[in-house]
């Protein structure tokens, strides 16, 4: 008689696991990070304390954390729409850049527009730019079954290079001492901020959008269609749902929200179009969406955590620790979340192996 450990699929993954696994994943990521820090002769506790003090311990740090969290919230919400239908849109970064580009067109071309036309116009263009950038892979997927993971990823590079081309070329500020930057936007093109912090109304937009998303995806007829298609395309077809049309709408929505994030960033923070607008918000947002299990409220909270990681990363640079500690922690979190996912689906059971 031999004992063997077998994997068994859980029939109904428990609800508690959905909360416990992400929490444990984050903790495990910090433990792994600590091992690396120890290996480089740092006191992990000291580094972590510095990170969190920097990110959350002062009014300035807190405000910066929220500033970093806003694009994460918007991009993660956008991504979550597509993920619900099992459309793996990893092109948030590109959609963010295209949204930023499209939104910049208005202040650069018509700087004299009044604020009540300028900001809504920029937001609309931002959604439009990002939305179209999501729609193109959707078309390829719906018509010819081209894998959207590949196309959305490749579209990222195109979008980033397109913005580079503009700021190094036609849109470069003639009075900018040859720096690759566009001209500064007029004051009418800046999103209002709270007090003297850099937190802009993008935060309110994200919170409202999260609420809207919750209603749409949990309560509406359309949300039901998305849920069914995501769970079983075959059943959706059987029930008479139009899968192709839903791929278009979902990717359009997903891209538009990521595009809005790009608009908010150029309008609320940067005030011009420039290269390296995003330190990878679109990619980090994938982790955020996954860790949040696509729940809108969780996305808001997790975005704050990841914003804090990023700001904390900057702070520890003063201690001689590279800022990429933050990136490493983010990567480790995703690693453990995906690994932990396995445990919500399966469990280990020991069994006696029969000997014939």
């Amino acid at each position, binding site marked *: 008689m031999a004992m063997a450990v077998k994997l068994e699929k859980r*029939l*109904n993954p428990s609800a508690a696991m959905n909360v416990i696994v992400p929490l444990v994943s984050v903790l495990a990521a910090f433990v792994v990070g600590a091992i690396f820090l120890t290996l480089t002769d740092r006191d992990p506790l000291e580094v972590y304390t510095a990170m969190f003090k920097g990110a959350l311990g002062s009014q300035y740090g807190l405000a910066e954390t929220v500033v970093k969290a806003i694009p994460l919230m918007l991009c993660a919400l956008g991504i979550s729409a597509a993920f619900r239908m099992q459309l793996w849109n990893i092109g948030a970064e590109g959609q963010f850049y295209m949204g930023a580009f499209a939104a910049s067109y208005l202040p650069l071309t018509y700087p004299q527009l009044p604020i009540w036309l300028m900001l809504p116009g920029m937001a609309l263009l931002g959604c439009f730019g990002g939305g179209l950038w999501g729609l193109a892979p959707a078309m390829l997927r719906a018509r010819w079954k081209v894998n959207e993971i590949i196309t959305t990823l490749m579209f990222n590079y195109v979008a980033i290079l397109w913005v580079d081309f503009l700021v190094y070329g036609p849109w470069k500020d003639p009075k900018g001492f040859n720096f690759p930057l566009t001209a500064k936007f007029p004051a009418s093109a800046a999103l209002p901020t709270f007090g003297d912090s850099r937190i802009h109304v993008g935060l309110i937009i994200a919170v409202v959008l999260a609420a809207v998303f919750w*209603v749409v995806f949990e*309560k*509406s*007829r*359309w949300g*039901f*269609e998305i*849920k*069914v298609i995501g*769970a*079983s395309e*075959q*059943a959706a*077809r*059987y*029930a*008479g*749902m*139009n899968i192709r049309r839903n791929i278009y709408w979902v990717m359009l929505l997903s891209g538009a929200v990521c595009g809005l994030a790009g608009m908010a960033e150029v309008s609320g923070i940067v005030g011009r179009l420039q290269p390296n607008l995003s330190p990878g918000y679109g990619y980090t947002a994938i982790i955020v969406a996954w860790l949040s299990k696509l729940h809108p409220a969780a996305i808001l909270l997790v975005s704050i955590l990841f914003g804090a990681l990023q700001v904390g990363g900057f702070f520890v640079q003063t201690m001689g620790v590279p800022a990429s500690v933050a990136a490493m922690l983010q990567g480790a979190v995703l690693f453990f979340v995906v690994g932990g996912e396995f445990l919500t689906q399966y469990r280990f059971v020991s069994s006696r192996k029969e000997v*014939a």
Partner: protein
Amino acid sequence: MMKQPLVQMRGIVKKFPGVVANDHVDLDLFAGEIHALLGENGSGKSTIMSILAGLYKPDAGEILVDGAPADFGSPRDAIDAGIGMVHQHFKLVEPFTVAQNIQLSERDGAFLLSDAAIRQEIKAFETRFGLAVDPDAPVWQLSVGEKQRVEIVRMLYRGSRVLILDEPTAVLTPQETAELFVNMKKMAAAGCAVVFITHKMNEVQEVADRVTVLRGGKVSGTMLCRDVHAQELVWLMVGREIVLNAERCASGQCGGEILSMKNVSALNDSGRPGLSDLALSLRAGQIFGIAGVAGNGQKELAEVLTGLRRTETGSIQFLGENVTGMSPSELIARGISYVPEDRLGMGLVPSLDAVENMLLKSYTHPEYSHGWLINRKAAEAKTAAVVQQYNVKLAGLSQPVRSMSGGNLQKLLLAREISEHPKLIIVVYPARGLDVGATESIHKLLMELRDQGAAILLVSEDLDELMKLSDRVGVMFGGQIVGNFPIEEVDLEEVGLLMMGLFRPKEERIHGDGR
């Protein structure tokens, strides 16, 4: 025949949850013979061969190869013992060439692969057995018949003396089939034991030396082919006491014509003809039973009627309206309902709860929605009522349905479809995998629906079920209805022969296309 069998299987028992797939099966295979394994779907043919090929471990019984006990822990062990199986779904690496695919199974495991040697061996198989394959062709470019040859060559290359072919002709054209049979005979003549699984009678008589018939997991007979008559094989295969009119309910008055299909053709999933020139007529209050071996167009028929598969030619009239080429949602709106073979995955979504599954087709109806929002309360009330009315047992309305039992899933699915008051309902294998009690309640539901005036197309592989419920029985073979009888005139033996594609009744021959 006093020589020792190459393979002896003794008292093999294999149980799966809920079924005994093999119940003390004995089977001898001799070198140089072609042995047919005949049986209906679910009779245990594939299971016993998978055990021989090392894919499953038997729960009891033993296997002797050359008289010595063998214990196969994996397909590798079986292959080392000289037993190779060609599965229905080929296990080839599509982007690789033929030679590379064959090299994958290199016996001696040398580090460097010898290209010239392999070509030589492939060539040798061609001259010996007529198994012509181009070693340099990438596999994805090959036809199905060619891929099958590559699989066979691969097994021979691995040194197989026992070659198991699982329904090899199901995917082949008649010409390819003829070619395969010639090759099989050559291989047997060279001393291999060739086993092939089939449910086509004519193939057994054409190529096999001996035949073993399985029914319900047991061997119902093993005999020499030249001693046996087709009728006898059919009886061994389907032979059971048919409980005629024991529980038959009087059929309601047949109403007007609901469905009429003329010359309907459609392709199957692999792009070959699935339905060819099919004609069918269905009346209100009638259960039309479709008998036939799975894979003869039943699935395609159901999907054409529900808009899930494109109709290539022909026309479908539903209640006097031409509905050919309409989308699934248009057909659902007109009152065509479908209980698919794949209950969990198509008919029901495993990860959704009972309420959401109840809403699957009716989520746009005004009674379940406030404008663009879903009225979950109304849906819950409806689901609770249906669950009670149809006596569906479930853990909770908000629990994912994947944990429900097969019988309750089927009841929930059928209840959902019936509660929409369909005018035509297509029901495929409704009682498959259900216990007696659940089967009985499903049958009752269907009969009630019939009495309310719905037309029911019942696809089943269970003749008892068809005899019990149907008002007419049609037999499907090769994408056509090859026989169509009122229930009083059904002769089971004739149905059995038609299912095997053996002959057509006289009136069909007159009107038929004389294929």
